[in-house]
Every structure is written in C-alpha cells, then in structure tokens.
C-alpha cells in the first residue's frame, strides 16, 4: 500500500481518518497512550520499539554471558551444570544474534532509512508493524522454553543429528526452531519493505550514488536477508518435521547425510554474519565523516565494497566446515573465496582511516565508538584471515580462538557500531543528548572490558581450549601462571568490566531522560537528510520533501566552498534551514492510519507453534486467529477510496458509515 505517493486533499495532516465503513473494522485513531504504540504503523515508533526490544534481549543475552563466564572463571566450575550450561551458550548466541543485533539494526533501519532518503514512511507500514510484533512474539516464544522444561541445548548452529529428539528430548529445540521461523518472517517482511522503500521512495534528486551510506549498507543487508532467511527457514522446517512429525531428513540409519544441515545452516549463517556487521559499518561510515568534518573517503568504494561483501558472502559458507571432511578441492576453493572477501572488508577499514586522515576530528562518544570499531574490528578481521588458511583453521576451529575472533567481529564490529549509532542519533530520536562524560566512561569501560574478555580467548584457543565446554580441568590447563585457568579468570573479570560499561549506558539513558535540557537542532554539525527536520521528527518527517543535489545534502545547504581558498564557509544554520522548510510546508500530507491487525496476526503465529509442540488443538485456535486477522487486514480500508476521506460528500460512504455504527 504505497500510499505516500498519493496526494489527497485534506484539511490538516494526520487527522485524515479512514471511514469506519464496516463498523467493527474501523482503524484505530488514538494518537496517545498505549494504543498509539500497540497499533502504530509509524516507522519511527516501530523503530524505537525495535530498539527497546533489542536492548531488553541484549540484557538477557548479557546475563547469560555473565553466567557462562562465572562458570568458567575457575577450573571445574560449579555455577551451572552441563545441561544448563549447554542451554546457556545456545541461548546466548541465539539471543544476541537474532534478538539483539538483528532487531537493533532493524530498528535503526526503520527509523533512519525513511528520514535519510527524505520519505514520510516506509512503503508498507502495516507490514512493518507486523514485522516488529512477529520479532517480539518470536523472541518471547523462544525464551518461554526456559520455563517449560528447558531451553534449546544444541548450540545456535544446532548441528544434526545432535538436534534430534533422541539427543535433545526436551522441547527447547522445538521452541527454538519455531520461534526462529516466526522471527524469520519478520526479517523477510522487513527486507521486502525496506528494499521497496529505498528503491521507490527516495526524495527527488537522490540518485543511488547520492544515497547516504548507512541506507546503502542497510539495503545490502536487506538483500542478504531476503535470500538468506528462506534458507534457514527450510532448514528449520526440516528440523521441526524431524522433531515433531517423525521425518528422517538427518537420520543416518535411513541413508541421510548430516552434512546437509551444516550446508543449509551455513549458507544462511555466513551471510548472516554480514547481516550483523554491515549495519554497523553503515553507522560508522556516517559518524566518521560527521566528526571529521570531511566526506566519507572513497564513497563509491565503500558502497561497492559493501555490495561486493554482499555477493562474495554467499560463496564462503563452507569455511565453517573445514574440519567437516569436505575433501581438499572444496576446502581449497572456499579457502580462496574467504581470502577474497577479506579484500572488500579491508577496503572499508582503509577508507575509514583515510576519512579521518586530514580531517578536523571531534571526539564525541559516538566518534570514539567508531574509532574503537575500526581498530577492534581490524583485529577480528585479521584473525578471520588466519582462518581462511584452511590447514591453520583445522587447528583453531572450535577452539576459543574462534570465540575470540567472532566476538571481535560482532562485538568490536557490530556492537560498538550500534553504540556509536545510539550516541549519534539519540538527540534525533529523543530531542536530548546523552551525557558525554558518562559516555566517555561507558566507552572506555566497554573497550577495556571487551579486550580483557575476548583478548585472552585468542591465547586460550591457541593453547588448545575447545569451545562449548561446561568445565575445564587443571590437568589440561598447562603449567605456570599463564595457563587456561589464568586466562579464563582474566576473561571472566573482563566480562564484568564490560557489563559495568553497559550498565553505565543504561544509567546514562535514565539520567538523560530526567534531564530537561533539550538538544540543539543540529548538535553534531551533521551531514545527511535526517538532521534536516525537528528533534524528534514530526510524524510526517518533513514539512516539505527536500530536493537533493549532493551527497551530504544537509552539509552542503549549510556550507559553501570558497572557490578561491577551497575552504568551507557557513552560509546557513540548521535553524534557518528548518524555518525555511516550515514556511513552505506541504499542504497535502497523507499519512497511513494505525491498524489493529498486525499485532493480532503476529500473536496468532506463536499460538500455532505452541500448539504444534503441546497440542494440535491449540494450533487450530492459533490458525483461527491468524485467519481472522488476515481477513480483517485485507478488509480494512488501506488504500481507502477517496470518498472515505471526503467529509463534505453525502455519497455512499457516508450512508454506509451510519450503517456500521448502528
């Protein structure tokens, strides 16, 4: 329902209420209170809800991580038993990947893509809402397993046949598989939605090569999601059938090959890695130029290297399987492709560094996180290159060296980028700036904590400590001071430093919320379109859709190059630009109305899957909910006929309205 393109004459924006043509199928109209959130289709509200949900699951996953580190702080840890430990690391990974980083990226994308491309909403607002609710309910559903007999215990990679009903008799993996299928629908709808939005709804003049880099990276991510999620869905489908309906896709005694699962999982799983880090690459590529007062160095290179990562990312999955016995030819090929993907990744690091080079660097917290990302992600990237050397990888794979590697990539790359984005865009989202001094502490504690936690894991891995062990023993930890026990203790201490750092962020949020000081309109002297509106943006984003002439349009409206000296001269302030916009505000703005159905439909799916696990009759009720929600959705006046919006017309719509109300 790409309705933003339509221009309908209305008296004021927002108040255009689709008619209550069919009585019970009115669209909700509340603009305040909880209804305004639960039934919203506004991309900004959904973005914030994505963010809050992600933060919640970040804390859940973080607590799981701390329990893991407590257990491993000393030899023969007794904090968790083997079963609980296996559940803990499975759910830690699942939560962090699917319920924290992905939704957080989705939140940023939702909030900022329309703003960055000068649109008033996404292409399919109700589908957008559906995506959020599916993610939330899917996440809750997966975590329900903690209270219903135990969570999934097969590792997030869930290798067959260890994931079969014989080897994991609790319902944990059922919850996991169904929950991820639900969350997968959210990713798919979100991907389609954002791709259509980016391709169709950019402001006039904004060619693809004038599009902000964050939007570019997120677009690559959406394409990755679009093709990766169906693969994992197939795998999860097979797994669900194996566990619940006696299928034998991975039953070796029936002639199956368990490597099928590994291929399916990693064909999804490796692009997934780029799904997790590319959003942060996008954020960093926004933040660095702003605080260097210089455009992104080699914008086209960054764009195309992002796209290249998106393509080559499909050809490297088997490097997760170098020890699986693929045969030397496959191993050699995947070794080569893995080295190849290091090149575009390296291009990004080079470009970020050169963006700072020769700039005028302002060290805000956001900037610090971005610089931290460059260095720490480089460490993760380089340890990744050592894995591409397949023979070497057969020594390091499934040891803590890998754990160190991907935490440098996903924490050093992904999470630092996310925090950079939070500090950078907080004034945009809430109209208040996060406390910079606390931010400084937050940054340093997180960076020190993360290096203390994950740095020693390199050494642990090289010393030969395998992953996923609920205990390590003194007998295998080596002699001298710097043995397993020492480095594990350091890592555990580091994890608590890291936790304190993140706690500071939460404290910062509370303090900022209580602080009445409003942020300036353009606190960072920013460059892209999202800053060309109020903080937080109005519901319709822009009073007038800007016409774009430059990459970094906003900056070029504020500054002009002196042709003689090549220095930049300020010609307008953000306030002046804003006032200019308000003077010329569009009279015809039509925003989509809220809807009941996304949340109802999304609720039906976990009911179905709950029924799949416990009683098929419950599934029938879930199906009824889904059916009626879909029915209501289709019936709801979405692209309502013009008559719905015309108040002065006595034609049928009016008459029908009274029918409905009787």
């Amino acid at each position, binding site marked *: 329902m790409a309705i933003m393109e339509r221009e309908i004459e209305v008296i004021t924006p927002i108040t255009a209420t689709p008619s209550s043509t069919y009585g019970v*199928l009115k669209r909700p109209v509340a603009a305040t209170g909880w209804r305004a959130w639960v039934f919203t289709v506004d991309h900004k509200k959904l973005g914030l809800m994505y963010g809050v949900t992600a933060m919640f699951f970040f804390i859940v996953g973080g607590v799981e991580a701390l329990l893991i580190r407590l257990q491993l702080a000393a030899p023969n840890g007794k904090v968790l038993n083997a079963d609980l430990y296996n559940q803990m690391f499975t759910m830690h990974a699942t939560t962090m990947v699917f319920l924290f980083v992905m939704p957080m990226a989705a939140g940023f994308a939702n909030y900022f893509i329309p703003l960055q491309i000068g649109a008033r909403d996404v292409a399919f607002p109700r589908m957008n809402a559906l995506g959020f609710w599916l993610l939330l309910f899917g996440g809750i559903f997966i975590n329900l397993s903690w209270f219903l007999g135990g969570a999934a215990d097969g590792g997030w990679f869930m290798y067959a046949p260890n994931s079969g009903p014989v080897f994991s008799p609790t319902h944990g993996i059922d919850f996991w598989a169904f929950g991820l299928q639900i969350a997968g629908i959210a990713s798919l709808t979100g991907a389609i939605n954002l791709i259509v939005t980016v391709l169709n709804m950019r402001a006039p003049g904004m060619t693809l090569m004038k599009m902000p880099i964050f939007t570019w990276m997120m677009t690559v991510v959406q394409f990755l999601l679009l093709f990766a999620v169906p693969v994992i869905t197939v795998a999860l489908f097979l797994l669900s059938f194996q566990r619940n309906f006696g299928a034998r896709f991975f039953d070796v*005694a029936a002639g199956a090959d368990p490597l099928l699962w590994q291929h399916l999982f990693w064909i999804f799983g490796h692009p997934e890695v780029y799904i997790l880090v590319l959003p942060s690459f996008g954020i960093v590529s926004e933040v660095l130029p702003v605080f260097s007062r210089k455009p992104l160095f080699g914008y086209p290179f960054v764009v195309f290297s992002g796209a290249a990562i998106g393509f080559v990312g499909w050809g490297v999955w088997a490097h997760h399987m170098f020890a699986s016995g693929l045969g030397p030819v496959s191993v050699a090929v995947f070794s080569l492709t893995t080295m190849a993907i290091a090149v575009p990744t390296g291009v990004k690091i080079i470009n970020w560094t050169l963006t700072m080079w020769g700039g005028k660097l302002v060290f805000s917290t956001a900037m610090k996180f971005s610089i931290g990302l460059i260095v720490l992600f480089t460490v993760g990237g380089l340890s990744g290159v050592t894995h591409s050397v397949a023979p070497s990888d057969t020594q390091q794979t499934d040891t803590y060296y890998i754990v160190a590697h991907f935490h440098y990539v996903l924490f050093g790359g992904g999470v630092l980028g996310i925090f950079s984005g939070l500090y950078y865009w907080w004034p945009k989202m809430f109209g208040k700036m996060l406390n910079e001094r606390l931010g400084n502490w937050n940054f340093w504690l997180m960076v020190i904590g993360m290096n203390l936690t994950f740095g020693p894991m390199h050494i642990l891995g090289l010393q030969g400590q395998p992953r996923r062990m609920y205990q390590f023993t003194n007998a295998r930890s080596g002699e001298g001071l710097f043995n397993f026990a020492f480095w594990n203790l350091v890592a555990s201490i580091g994890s608590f430093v890291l936790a304190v750092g993140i706690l500071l962020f939460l404290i910062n949020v509370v303090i900022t919320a209580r602080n009445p000081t409003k942020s300036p309109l353009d606190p960072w002297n920013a460059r892209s379109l999202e800053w060309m509106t109020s903080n937080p943006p109005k519901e319709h984003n822009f009073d007038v859709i800007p016409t774009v002439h430059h990459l970094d349009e906003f900056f070029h409206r504020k500054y002009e190059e002196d042709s003689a000296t090549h220095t930049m001269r300020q010609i307008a302030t953000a306030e002046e630009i804003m006032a200019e916009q308000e003077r010329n505000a569009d009279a015809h703005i039509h925003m989509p109305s809220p809807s009941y159905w996304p949340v109802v439909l999304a609720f039906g799916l976990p009911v179905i899957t709950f029924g799949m696990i416990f009683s098929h009759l419950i599934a029938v009720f879930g*199906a009824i909910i889904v059916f*009626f929600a879909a*029915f209501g959705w*289709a*019936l709801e006046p979405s692209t309502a006929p013009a008559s719905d919006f015309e108040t002065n017309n006595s034609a*049928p719509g009016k008459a*029908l309205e009274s029918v409905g109300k*009787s």
Partner: protein
Amino acid sequence: MFSTGFKYFMGVTVLSVVALIMSLFVLDQVAIAGVALSMLVVAAALLGGIAVVTRDGNRQSGVNEQSTDLVSQSIWPLVTSIGVVFLALGLVISSAVFFGGIVILLAALAEWMVQSWSERASKDANYNASARKRLLNPIEFPVLAALGLGIVIFSFSRIMLTVDKTTGASLFIVFGSLVLIGGILFAIKPDMKRSLGAAICVLGAVGIVAGGIVSATSGVREELVVAKGESHMAPECGEERSEHFDKNATGTLSLRSSVSATIELLDGQLTARLVGFQDPQKSLTISRSAPTNLIFHNLDAKDYRLVAELGTRAAAEPEGATEKNLVCTQLAAQGFEQLLLLKIDKPAPEGTSYRLVVPGVEGQSIELVVP
C-alpha cells in the same frame, strides 16, 4: 452492538469449543471428533464474523428506502440448491460427496448473505458491488486461486505420470519454454491488452486440464504400476522382479566421497577398495552398530547385485525358525553403482563369519570383520 446472528454463531462456537475440550478428556479416539469439532469451531466463528460485519444482512431502518430497487441477479440460490443435491447424493454415494455438499452449501449461504446485505447498503449499485467485493474478495481470491492452481497442477501431474520418461522430460522443456516465451512477450509488450494475456493463460490452463483429464482416464504408465507394488527400501535378494528401480543410485547421493569402501567386481574378481589401503582388500572391518555405507561398482558385463550375508535371524514364521539374514543392493548393470547401507550390531558367532558375495559369481567373497 452485537447482532443476533453473531450471538447465535458465537454461541455455537463457544459450545463447540467446550465440546472439543470435553472430548479430549472423555473420548479415547479424539481424532475424528477433534477434527469434526474443530471444523465446526472454524465454520461457526467464520459465519459469526461475517454476521457481525454485515449486521446479519439486515436492512437498517430508514436509511436506504430505495435500495431494494437495486436487487440484482444472483447465482447463489442455484449454487445453494446444488449444494443440497450434493448433500443428498453424498448420503447415498460417499462421504466425500457429502462433505463437498456441505462446503458448497456453506460457501453459497455466506455469499448469499453478504450479497443481500450489500445490495441494501446504499442507493448506488456500483458502491454496493464494491462493498461486497471488499468484504468477500479477500476470501474468494485465495480460495479460487488455490483451487484453480491446484487443478492445473494436479492435471499436469497426471500428464507426467502417464507419458513415458523421455516424453515427460520433453514436455517439461516445452512447457517451460512456453512460460518463458509468454513472459518475454509480456515484457516486450507491456501495453498488450489484458484480455489477450488472460486469453493466453486460460488457453494454457485449459490445455493442461484437458491433457490431465485424458491422461487420468488412460491411467499411469506401466512401470509405475509395477513399481508401486515393490519395496524399494529393502530390495529383494532373489530374482529381480522389476526393471524399474533406480539404476545408478549413488549418482543421487552425497556419500560418494566418504563411503567406507567401494566393492568392485571386475573379470569375476571381487575386491574392496578402501581409502588409505594401497592394494585392493579381501576383508573389511566394520565397527559394530555404526551405520556404514558401501558402494558396489559392477564392471562386468552381466547385471549383478551385492549381497551381505549376515548370519541368521529369526524368521517371521513358523515360530522358532531362522532364515538367512541378507541385505542386498539392487542390480547394477555394467559400469553402474549401487549403494549398500549396513548396520551390524553384533560380531559373527564363533566359527562363522559375515561376508559380501555376488550371486552368480562363484568363489568370490569379501569378509566383513566386525570386532
């Protein structure tokens, strides 16, 4: 607020839900009752929903006096009566027809109700039509599309089951090309008349359905009839009864690179090739209880099969009797391969041994050592 019809249907829904839950506790055989009651729940809830949306199809007092003039033609009385006929016929002929009748009846009644409601909605016939569409199209389109596509796909599958393998492949290519050409045509001429496009699609669908009907009446091809009677999971070890098994089974498996051994038959000599052993072997160690894949590669001119002789096992009858425990591959023609999946739980009893043999090749065997 809630209409009478809605209350009625919701009452039925709630009662049937209660009945459903009761049946779970009371009945041992929940399958049939459960399905029937669930269906009732869905149907009643659906009708309740429609009732509340359409206000029971009631005309509203004083709103649209003239709207009764707009009553249009309706097909639903006819369809309803057809449903009734099916219902009655079903009682005599078969339950499938009976259920078909119920579905037709319910659908027709729902359509009828919505139509009569929409015709009184306003004075504008066009508006009324659009109101009906908006209410029912979300259900009609998916159902009709599923039905239509289902018929086309089913017809296509009948054609494929009837024609022989080569023709089937060619037909597939032809159909694929036609679809592609059609797509190209649409792409080149986007302003083509919609009716023309629709005509092409309908023509294609009708062609397939017609082909499907013809195929269905002439029956599936011979080899499938034969193959249906055979068990392919546990091939017969004696005389091959069918020519219609998978002739080159390993071609479809991902196991080729890591099987336990390849058993080769060349010039009447049976040898085992194992990764790591330079020379062909005459014995093969298999861990007990480990699923083990072997490939039989026949290089001799006749068709042969590989048979694993694994001692004896209890026969189905008479009680106490034993029979030879044999596991076999299908026949492999010259140059072809077949797969054997073994899982041996116990070592051979003292003084006996397990072995692989090829019936028809004398004096050749490979010992299976199960330590």
